[in-house]
C-alpha cells in the first residue's frame, strides 16, 4: 500500500474512533473554536478601552 493510501486509512480510523464518543468530540470542536476566539476577545476588550497604543 502506498504511503498516501495508508495515511488515508489512518485518517479514517481516527475519525471513526472519535465518533465513538460523540459528546466529547462535539465539545472538543466547540472548545477549540472558543480557545482560538478568546484571544481576539482579549485584544478587542483592551483596544476598546484604551484606544490606540503608540500609533
Amino acid at each position, binding site marked *: 500500500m502506498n504511503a498516501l493510501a495508508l495515511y488515508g486509512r489512518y485518517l479514517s480510523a481516527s475519525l471513526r474512533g472519535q465518533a465513538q*464518543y460523540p*459528546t*466529547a*468530540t*462535539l*465539545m*472538543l470542536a*466547540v*472548545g*477549540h473554536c*472558543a*480557545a482560538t476566539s*478568546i484571544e481576539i*476577545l*482579549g485584544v478587542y*476588550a*483592551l483596544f*476598546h*478601552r*484604551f*484606544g*490606540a*497604543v*503608540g500609533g
Partner: protein
Amino acid sequence: MLVAARPYLAAFSARFQLMLQYRMAALAGFATQCWWGGIRIMVFAAFYGANAAAAPISLADAVTYVWLGQALLALLPWLADPEIGQAVRTGGVGYDRLRPLDAYGYWYARTLGWMLARAAPRAVLMLLAAGIVLPLAGLEAWAWRPPSGLAAALLFAPAFALMTALATAVVMLANIVVAASLNERGVNAVLTPLVIVFSGSLLPLNFYPPALQPWLHLQPFAGLVDIPFRIYFGNLAGDAALQSLALQAGWTLALVGLGRFAMERVMRRLEMQGG
C-alpha cells in the same frame, strides 16, 4: 461528626501528599507562570503607558492581579480531575460505586486535595519571586504587593476559601460530565476557555465593555479570580466585598447542589467501559 468525616479527610490528605511529590512539575509550572506573568505585565504596561486614564484600576493593582493570578493558576478549574478520567477509562469508577461513602463527597475530597497540592508549591515559589525577590532587586513597581490593608487581608481569607470551594465544585461538574460522556478531552476543551474569560483570568472583568459588566459580575466564574483578587487589593471593600463573598458562597452552594443532583442521575444509569 468527626468519625463520619474521617474517610473524606483520609482521601483528601492521601491525594494531597501524593501530588506534592511532583516537584519538577511544580518547578516547571512556576517557570511557565513567571514567563507568562512577565508578558501579561508588559501588555498592561503598554496600554497604561498609552492611556492610563481609561483603566479601571491602577497599574500597581493590575501587576498584583497578574502575579496573584499566576501564583494561584493551578487552583482554577481548568480540567476535570485526571484520576477520575482514568477511573472512567479503565472502568475503575465501578469500584467507587461499591464504597460505603457519599460518592460526591468522596470525589470532592480527592479533587480538592489534587488542586490544593498543585497550587501550594507554585504559590509559595511565586510569592518568593514576585513578592520578595523583585522588590529586593529594585523592581518594586513590578512586584506583587501585600493586601491593601488589614481589612482587605481579613476579607481575602474567606474569599480564598470560597474560591477554592467554588473551583472544586466546578471541577466536580466536569468530573460528572467525564463519567457520563466516558471521555475527559471534550469537557476539558470546553471548560478551559470558559474559565479563562469569565473568571477574569484573561483580563479583570472591569476591563470588558461597560454594557457587559452587570452580567459578568453576577456569573459564577467571577468568584474564581475577579472577586477574591479585587478584595485583596481593596478594590472591593466594605458592603461591596461582603456582597461579593455572599455571591461566591451562593454560587458554590448552587454548583454543589447541581453536582450532587447530576451525579445521582449519572450514577443511577452508569455506563462503564474497560475490564
